[in-house]
Every structure is written in C-alpha cells, then in structure tokens.
C-alpha cells in the first residue's frame, strides 16, 4: 500500500505527527481520552485521570495555574520587549519612552508585561496563602510523598517572583527605578560583614551606573526566568509524585474509613529495570471510577478557561490602567515621597520603623526590617511544614479545626503585611509622614 501510494503514506505519517501535537477535544471513549494524554507532548505531564475534587474551582481557586499562565504571558511579552529595549544608561529611558509613544502597540506590550508582573506577585502570594490554609503542604498516607519539599520550592518561587519584579523595574531608568534600586541595594549593604561587598557586586561599582543596569538586565531576562522555569518544572513534577492535590488524600482516607473494598492498584514497573514502582500511576483512591474523570477534556478544558480568564483580566487591566513612566532618573533629587511598588511597601514601612538603639549601639532599620525580619519570615515558612504535627485528617482541608491555631498565626502575619502595605500605599505622604486619606498633602517645592 505504502509503496504503491507514497503520497498517501506521507499523508498518513503527517496525520500521525499532527495527532501527537493536538488532542481530541471531545473524546468519544475512555480510550481516546487516555490516548490524548499518553500520546500528546503538551499533555504528557498530566495524569490520565483526575479526581473531581482537584478540579473544583473553589478548592484551589486555580491560583497556581493562574501564576503559571501569568509567567508565560510575561515570557511572551518579554521577548519582543527585549528587541525594543536598549540596556544602556543613555538610551534605556528613551527606548522605554519610544515603546510608550512611538512603537505600534508598544504601550500594550509594556503595559501587559507590567500588569502581569503585578498580578503574578499577587497570584503567587495568594497561592501560598491557599496552600497554607488548606494544609496542602502536608503529606497524606501515600508512599514517597514529600510535600514539604514542594512547599519550600514554592517559597523559592515566591522569592524569585519578587526578585524578577525588583530587577524589572530598574530597567526603565526612571525616578522610581533609580531610587528603588538605591534603597534595595543599600538594604543589601546593611548585612553584616559581607554587606558592602554584596552591594559592590550587585551594582558593579559604588554607584548605580551602566554596570548596574546591564547586571539587572541579564538577571531579569535570563537568570531569574531560567530559575523560575527550573523550579516550576520541579514543582509540577513533585505535584505528580505526591499524588496530585492534597485534597485527594482526604478522599482516600474517607474511603478507607468507610471500609470500601480495595481494588488492585495500577502499577507499572519501569520495564523491570528497577524494583520501584512509579508512584503517580498508583491509585490512591480505592473506588477510582466513582471519583475521577478523564483529564482530557475535563482538566484541559478548565485549564483553558483559567488561561483565557487570566489573559482577559490582564489585557483589560492593561487597557484600563496605563503603565506610568516617571521622569528620567536623577541621582540628586529623590521624589517626595519616594515609594516602592505596592508589594514592597510593607518592607519600606518595616525599614522605616525598625531602627533601634540598644545599649548605645544603633542598629539600622535597613538591617532589622530589610534583612532580619524578612529573613526570619522566610525561614519560618521553610521550617513550618516540619513543625506542623497535625494529623493526616488535616491534609488538604480548608481551615481544618486541628490546624486552627497555626492558621490564625499565619493569618495574623498575612494581615500585618497587608496592613503595612495599605499604610505605605495610602497613608504616607511627603517625607514619609502619616496622612489620613482625607488630609491633603502640603505642597513642597520640588527643588531647593
């Protein structure tokens, strides 16, 4: 057949290839549904079947997915921006200005990139809050789970997200950029012993100049995104290894309690090469068919809905709120007040309020509020899963009674961060003085 009609054979081959890239939206059988996951490259990281619980909108709010979608929007918008932006101190500001006013749709590219970055900080943070409140960093009863490690990867991803935002807003070389980097790198320099060296290394000198700009540019466009991609891959791989979302563990516990007859687990050995079984194909749920649906189209459909919604919201916000561009960077005039972006304002509040004098020695708030307190917070986040001794009944359960106390402690910290952010955003005026929203700011001459 193939020899008699080579064109037909080629067509068939092409179709096969195409099948491996696309998948059936509406599979007509379980077989077709399973095939689309097993044969398709884009879907290979999904399980063939997922529980209904883990698909539910209001267990996870899909915040992790939304974060990932935002990250991919940032990559896609970031690449054309790299072609249009010039990382030199003479031309950086002008090239951003050109983007804003001369390049076709330049304002939209830059705006979408900026809005997505803001949203990503929010989404990643909320994702962390969700995982904590639902006790989803806890292991259930399945073998080889290591959700604590995945939580730590998540904390690292949050820090990477913040670093990406930080390095990103130096790039326009406007006033916001210059003073944010001044403050940020001085916080680094307040670290004992290595501080000054660290600042020198970060800036590539003693002052913010060309060396600094190119350093932050390379960090922003290459190192940090690569770091996020690697961590993200590992994050997703762990989710699969840990048996999916934590709420699934509760389901299998309930079934065991009900005394449902266990069914034979589906396990695959790695062709006899190792004795271990790949964990993720082992069914942890006893009555699988009752609780699971095929990933294709159920998971893929929701994934696309989440993607579409995220993209729509980001695009809408871009059109509604124009990305600001302040005056060109001026080392001699600090804007008054000089404010960091909203997600760093709680830190700006902290460094303002934490200079202490103990026994005649004054400790700079830059160290206490800028390094010590955030460091303690990150450390606490890292060790928390190992200190949490609640039972498996609290795995993947929102606001579990057993974990009430720690949830309250966590919420207090979150509330404190939010309150400091709100104070910094709305209640601080010139010279970082406190003003109620109804009080007007005094007019202060710009120059001396």
């Amino acid at each position, binding site marked *: 057949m193939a020899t008699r009609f080579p064109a037909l054979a080629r067509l068939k081959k092409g179709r096969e290839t195409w099948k491996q890239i696309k998948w059936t939206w509406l599979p007509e059988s379980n077989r077709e549904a399973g095939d689309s996951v097993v044969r398709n490259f884009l879907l290979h990281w999904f399980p063939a079947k997922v529980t209904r619980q883990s698909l539910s909108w209001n267990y996870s709010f899909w915040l992790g997915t939304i974060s990932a979608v935002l990250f991919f929007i940032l990559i896609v918008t970031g690449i054309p921006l790299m072609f249009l932006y010039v990382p030199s101190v003479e031309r950086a500001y002008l090239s951003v200005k050109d983007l804003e006013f001369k390049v076709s749709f330049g304002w939209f590219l830059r705006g979408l990139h900026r809005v997505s970055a803001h949203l990503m900080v929010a989404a990643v943070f909320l994702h962390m809050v969700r995982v904590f409140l639902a006790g989803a960093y806890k292991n259930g009863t399945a073998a080889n789970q290591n959700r604590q490690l995945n939580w730590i990867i998540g904390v690292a991803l949050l820090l990477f997200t913040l670093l990406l935002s930080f390095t990103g807003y130096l790039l326009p070389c406007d006033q916001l950029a210059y003073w944010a980097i001044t403050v940020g790198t001085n916080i680094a320099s307040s670290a004992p012993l290595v501080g000054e060296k660290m600042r020198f*290394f970060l800036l590539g000198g*003693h002052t913010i100049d060309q060396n600094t700009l190119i350093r932050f540019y390379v960090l922003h466009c290459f190192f940090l995104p690569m770091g996020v991609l690697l961590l993200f891959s590992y994050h997703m791989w762990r989710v699969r290894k840990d048996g999916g979302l934590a709420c699934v563990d509760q389901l299998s516990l309930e079934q065991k309690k009900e005394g449902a007859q266990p069914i034979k687990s589906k396990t695959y050995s790695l062709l006899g090469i190792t004795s271990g079984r790949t964990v993720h194909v082992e069914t942890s749920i006893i009555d699988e068919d009752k609780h699971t649906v095929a990933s294709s189209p159920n998971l893929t459909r929701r994934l696309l809905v989440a993607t579409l919604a995220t993209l729509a919201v980001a695009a809408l916000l871009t059109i509604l709120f124009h990305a600001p561009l302040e005056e060109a960077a001026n080392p001699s*005039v600090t804007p008054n007040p000089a404010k960091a972006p909203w997600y760093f304002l709680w830190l700006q509040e902290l460094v303002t309020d934490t200079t202490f004098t103990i026994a005649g020695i004054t400790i700079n708030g830059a160290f206490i509020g800028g390094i010590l307190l955030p460091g303690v917070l990150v450390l606490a986040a890292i060790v928390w899963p190992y200190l949490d001794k609640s039972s498996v009944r609290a795995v993947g359960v929102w606001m579990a009674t057993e974990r009430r106390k720690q949830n309250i402690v966590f919420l207090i910290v979150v509330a404190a961060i939010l309150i400091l952010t709100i104070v910094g955003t709305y209640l601080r005026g010139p010279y970082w003085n406190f003003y109620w929203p109804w009080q007007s700011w005094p007019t202060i001459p710009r120059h001396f």
Partner: protein
Amino acid sequence: MWRKKSAPDQAPGTLHQRETPDKASIDLTKRKWISRVGLGAILVGIGGQAYALIRALVPNVLYEDPQRFKVGTLDQFGEGAKFIEDKRVFIFRQKNTLHCISATCTHLGCTVKMERLNQAKRVTVRGREIDEQVEFACPCHGSKYYGDGTNYSGPAPRPLAHYKLELAPEDGQLIVDTSQTVSQDFRLTV
C-alpha cells in the same frame, strides 16, 4: 563496585578463586584512589573556572566620577548653604569658615532635602545649644536631621557624613574629598 560485594562472599574454588581477597582489596584501593583523583579533578576544574567566571564580574576598573572634585571658587559661596546637585553635597559658609555635609541619608541612601527654616530654631545638639537656619529631611523613610547633620527623628542610625574641604593651590577653587569623612566640627577657614 560489584566486586566489592562478591569478593568476600566467594568461597575458594569458585569462579573468582584466582583473585585472593588481598588482590581484590588492592584493586579496590587503586580504584577508589583513581576515582577520587578523577572526582577531585572535576571539582577543582569546575570550582576554579567558576571562580574565574564570578571574579570577572567584579570590576577592576571603574569609570565613576572621582571622589575628590572641585566645586567652584569661594566667591560662588555666599553666607549660608548651597546644594551641589550633581555631587549630592551641601556646602555651608559662615563668614570665613566653610564645611561640607553629605546629602546621602545614612539610612538607605536617598538624597535628603534641605528645609530652610523661616526663623532660626534653637536646638540642643551634642550638648550644645545652636541656632540653626536649616534642617534636613529624607523623602524615602522620613529621617530628620538638625542643621549640623545630627539625626534626631526617623530611622537614620547616624548623622550625615561631613567631608573634608580644601582649597586648590593652583586656582583657589574649593575641593571636596568625599573619600575622607571628618568630624562634625571640621571647618575650613579662609
């Protein structure tokens, strides 16, 4: 490595009998040694080159403005304070004395703003009463300094730096040396 396990277990007369335990252990030591040398070479190779890569990012030459610079002839400085914008320093003149205060906030490095007071304010600084004409305030985190640079409010941990002043012998211009901080009492008499 598999030999390690099998060697002691082998009863004499089996397939591996030619290898006495002694020879096996010598082989093992050799192997271990060679693999350690190899591993060490890899680590040293990677470590050394990593050092070179990172060291290359620490600049040896800086194209920054000099820390010692001229700010103008004496007749350009009238009584009171003058801000040298691009150098971020204030020059103060009181009759025939001059001194220089840095405009860089000691908290996190923002440029402080000078506020001229409508009427002289009597404050006690460092055990002395002075009538000050100006004060400094930082826009970033609200630190406040008296006219002599002493911090009195906000997160600033120490007074603003005072820099050494001198006169250039060749053209009589005032020279600021920001690499040399001096005491708050330093005055250049002209």
